[in-house]
């Protein structure tokens, strides 16, 4: 029977073993002297680890708590309990569905954790343990895999463990409250292996790594091609090279023979991507940049080789090769690609910045114990402790403590937001002052940050309508260039000067090489990527390239009043006392707040909050009665108090005096006045109103200065609406609009003709809070939703302003205008480059100025035209909105 060396884990036959030892009634076999020595030094150590369970045999009953996800159904819980009880050795099972915890008491001698876990999983539940990958250095012997696995499994708290010899990594599911990473590492060390951080877990951006690798590869290819180019150039311009110019044609031909061989690896290694790509494209009946480069350099190489092998076929003086074209063009284009790759990496920096915001670990409290877990392992429902200065790892709701949280990275809001029990916290924000605990509600790809990142990525890769034209052009571009190259050859051959063949070939090769479909194809996507990323940095999520393009031409901005211009929540604005009032204004507010505390009316909330803000003590209320359509009556501190509208006062026959006049002027200002009477006498008025956000007026002014017409839309009465409009400087008000008619109003604005002569529809943007405004947001050319990062109402909109400020609308338009300008620059540049470059390459200037482009210049121009496009797009990274959201 095969045995295992307990020290190194090697598989050995007992009869061929190097040595044998008896220890505690067990026999051990060894492969070598060093293993025996190690065993003899501490035989008990190998005994310990050979046990199947790591539990103390004296303690027969073990209690374990397993976090189980998806426990809400009672009938399933009983099913789970009975399944576990059926296992031999399980003595007690408790299911705590609200905490998602399962408590099991079991005999460690009869059943182990992995069996319990298996049973739970077999009926469809998931065990929410932590999962970790640990790298193992120099893991070579396949048999050790099993030993390490067993060792890990027998460590207390480990649910399952697998070791992969190919990746040299152990993957362990464990209960973080029962074991720690260092215990797992110790288990690996007992087998003489050194644990290291897993490479597949290393927080390196995969794409970045791939780019770095590709960049190195391209640079190697470039340096090789460049070195060969130098040699090839010397042989090509032999007339000016001191020693070579004295050589005769035959010796030169031998030298060129060497360049034939040298340029081959340049073509098929340095330029392999062009030839492979060209062939793959050809098979797909398509052609791209690779086709052009491959054709150009291939034709040059074939001609040159033919010319030096059969010089007699060509007229005198035309049999000279141009391998220099082959080597130099490939070197330059490869260099261009490498530079382009480097520049591209910078373009996507916005996403990297966003991802970098993510916290790496979370301090989770499970089973009363605090433990640091990688953020990927945090479960929904976990309670997490956050100390001052730490990052909030995931999204959740505060259950204990309070603090100020800096949310500027997600919302652009520079003032820390104060958070108390019951308030939402967003992952990646920074806790400033206090410590708090929160219960997680969203983890992993559901967190606000993850969704923002995904949205930004999708938008960066979407298409602006303007790119469609470039797309159509590039679909026909390459074959057209090929046809142009053919006719360049034909024309030079038929009517060109001597030597016709050389001129014809050089010009057609130049045409193939100078044409750059890449610059055209890259123009839009590169700028979009930078522009949309730039928006995200300022708290503006642009959903697609189309939205970005449309936003540039916005002529009318429709602003929803409630929640967009205003805070969307009523606040106390005025306390007015009557002449005969027996109380002062604080007293009046205190009494009113005491009554309203009992009321459920939304306006009541504003009064209570105002009283609390002024630290007024709320009194006890008796005989509270709500009078529908009128107000409320109650008894506070032996006073009969009435709060309500004019109807209530008239019904109770209370003389109002000048109060009635004052209430009218308050209503004219868009406020809602409420009369208060104490013991049958008018005491005063308390007015509440939905107040305007601090920076709304400023933002509206900025929009108007951009030449945009601002319209306010609201369901409120005209008087209130106009009061608000006056305050913020909006001239056009659409009031008393039913929610379902909002989209119709937007439609009407879209069809209003600005200019009598041209019948171009208006580009209308609608700004709303996303929920009841959804149809209007969808109807508008650009729908901007004002919300927070956690809000899912983002869906209906084209652009989301994470921070609830109207200034975001201005910034969004600025970002859009800057990006579109950049795209135009790129497209126009790329277009003119080709439109001018190709005719010059064809030799159009030759009859007039005797000017011909060298294929090498063409190669350089082509390589750097696409680098220029990416570089210009990167200029956008320096974009700063003139009117930024502070």
């Amino acid at each position, binding site marked *: 029977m095969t045995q295992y060396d307990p020290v190194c884990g090697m598989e050995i036959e007992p009869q061929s073993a190097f040595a044998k030892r008896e220890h505690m009634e067990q026999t051990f076999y060894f492969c070598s002297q060093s293993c025996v020595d190690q065993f003899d030094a501490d035989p008990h150590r190998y005994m310990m680890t050979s046990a199947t369970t790591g539990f103390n045999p004296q303690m027969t009953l073990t209690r374990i708590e397993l976090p189980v996800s998806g426990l809400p159904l009672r009938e399933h819980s009983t099913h789970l309990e009975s399944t576990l009880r059926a296992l031999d050795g399980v003595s007690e099972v408790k299911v705590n569905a609200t905490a998602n915890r399962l408590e099991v008491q079991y005999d460690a001698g009869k059943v182990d954790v992995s069996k319990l876990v298996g049973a739970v999983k077999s009926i469809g539940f998931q065990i929410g343990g932590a999962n970790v990958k640990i790298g193992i250095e120099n893991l070579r012997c396949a048999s050790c895999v099993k030993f390490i696995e067993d060792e890990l499994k027998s460590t207390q708290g480990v649910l399952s463990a697998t070791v992969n010899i190919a990746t040299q990594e152990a993957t362990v599911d464990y209960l973080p409250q029962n074991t720690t990473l260092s215990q797992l590492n110790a288990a690996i060390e007992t087998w003489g292996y050194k644990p290291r951080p897993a490479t597949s877990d290393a927080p390196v951006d995969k794409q970045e790594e791939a780019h770095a690798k590709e960049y190195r590869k391209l640079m190697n290819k470039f340096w090789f091609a460049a070195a060969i180019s130098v040699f090839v150039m010397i042989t090509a311009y032999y007339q000016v090279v001191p020693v070579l110019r004295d050589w005769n044609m035959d010796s030169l031909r031998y030298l060129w023979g060497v360049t034939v061989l040298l340029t081959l690896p340049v073509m098929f290694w340095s330029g392999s991507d062009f030839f492979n790509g060209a062939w793959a494209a050809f098979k797909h*009946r398509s052609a791209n940049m690779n086709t052009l480069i491959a054709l150009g350099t291939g034709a040059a190489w074939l001609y040159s080789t033919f010319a030096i092998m059969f010089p007699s076929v060509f007229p005198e003086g035309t049999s000279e090769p141009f391998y220099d074209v082959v080597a130099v063009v490939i070197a330059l284009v490869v260099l261009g690609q490498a530079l382009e790759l480097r520049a591209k990496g910078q373009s996507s920096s916005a996403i990297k910045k966003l991802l970098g915001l993510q916290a790496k670990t979370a301090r989770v409290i499970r089973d009363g114990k605090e433990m640091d877990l990688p953020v990927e392992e945090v479960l929904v429902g976990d309670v997490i402790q956050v100390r001052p200065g730490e990052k909030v790892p995931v999204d959740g709701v505060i259950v204990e403590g309070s603090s100020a949280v800096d949310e500027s990275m997600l919302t652009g809001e520079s003032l820390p937001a104060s958070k108390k029990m019951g308030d939402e916290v967003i992952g990646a924000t920074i806790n400033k002052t206090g410590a708090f605990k929160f219960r997680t509600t969203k983890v992993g790809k559901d967190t606000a940050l993850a969704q923002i990142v995904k949205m930004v990525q999708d938008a960066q*890769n979407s298409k602006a309508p303007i790119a469609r034209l470039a797309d159509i052009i590039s679909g026909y571009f390459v074959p057209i260039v090929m046809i142009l190259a053919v006719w360049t050859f034909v024309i030079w051959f038929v009517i060109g000067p001597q030597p016709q063949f050389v001129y014809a070939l050089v010009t057609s090769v130049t045409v193939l090489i100078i044409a750059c479909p890449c610059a055209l194809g890259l123009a839009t996507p590169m700028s979009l990527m930078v522009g949309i990323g730039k928006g995200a940095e300022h708290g503006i999520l642009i959903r697609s390239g189309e939205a970005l393009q449309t936003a540039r031409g916005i002529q009318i901005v429709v602003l929803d009043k409630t929640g967009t211009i205003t805070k969307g929540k009523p606040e106390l604005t005025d306390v007015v006392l009557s002449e005969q009032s027996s109380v002062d204004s604080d007293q009046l507010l205190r009494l009113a707040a005491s009554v309203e505390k009992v009321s459920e009316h939304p306006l009541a909330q504003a009064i209570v909050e105002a009283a609390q803000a002024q630290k007024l003590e709320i009194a006890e209320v008796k005989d509270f009665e709500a009078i529908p359509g009128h107000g409320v009556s109650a008894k506070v501190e032996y006073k009969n108090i009435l709060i309500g509208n004019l109807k209530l006062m008239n019904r109770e026959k209370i003389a109002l005096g000048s109060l009635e006049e004052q209430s009218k002027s308050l209503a004219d200002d868009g406020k809602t006045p409420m009369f208060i009477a104490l013991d049958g006498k008018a005491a005063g008025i308390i007015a509440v109103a939905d107040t305007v956000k601090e920076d709304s007026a400023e933002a509206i002014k900025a929009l108007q200065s951009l030449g945009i017409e601002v319209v306010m839309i609201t369901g409120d009465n005209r008087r209130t609406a106009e009061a608000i409009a006056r305050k913020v400087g909006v001239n056009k008000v659409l009031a008393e609009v039913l929610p379902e008619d909002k989209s119709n109003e937007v439609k009407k604005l879209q069809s209003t003709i600005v200019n009598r002569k041209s019948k171009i529809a208006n580009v209308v943007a609608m700004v709303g809070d996303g929920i009841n405004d959804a149809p209007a947001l969808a109807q508008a050319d650009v729908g901007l939703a004002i919300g927070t990062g956690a809000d899912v109402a983002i869906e209906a909109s084209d652009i989301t302003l994470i921070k609830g400020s109207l200034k975001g609308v201005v910034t969004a338009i600025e970002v859009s205008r800057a990006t579109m300008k950049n795209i135009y620059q790129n497209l126009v540049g790329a277009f003119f480059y080709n439109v001018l470059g190709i005719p010059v390459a064809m030799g159009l200037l030759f009859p007039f100025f005797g000017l011909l482009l060298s294929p090498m210049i063409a190669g350089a121009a082509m390589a750097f035209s696409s680098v220029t496009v990416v570089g210009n797009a990167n200029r956008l990274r320096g974009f700063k909105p003139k009117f930024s959201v502070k």
Partner: protein
Amino acid sequence: MNTLQIFVILSGIVLTILIAWYFWFAPKAQTRVAVSASGAQEVAITVKGGYTPDVIVVQKGRPVRLTFTRQESVACSEQVLFPDFNKSSPLPEGEPTTIEFTPEKSGEFGFQCQMGMLRGKLIVE
């Protein structure tokens, strides 16, 4: 005009016609996707200098599951975009990456790499 020149002109005409025919007018092979047991239309696409297969015919209203495997390190093809469906995905070299969506409209929708060098077409019927 000598015979050689006439020959070159004629060759030019023939080449022009060949290029135009090959790249624009010749019918392309289409790959029809079968519906799998799970009800999704699954197809595996290799990315190497192009998409193989590159013209994919699917049915309307059924989920489409496209699994791309990139077998090259050239940075051009590192991302695949479906602009009409607002979908995109990075394609790490050698790792099968699945894109799933349900086409609700019939028509021809292009997919491509970021700069449009590699192109394919999804025909929804």
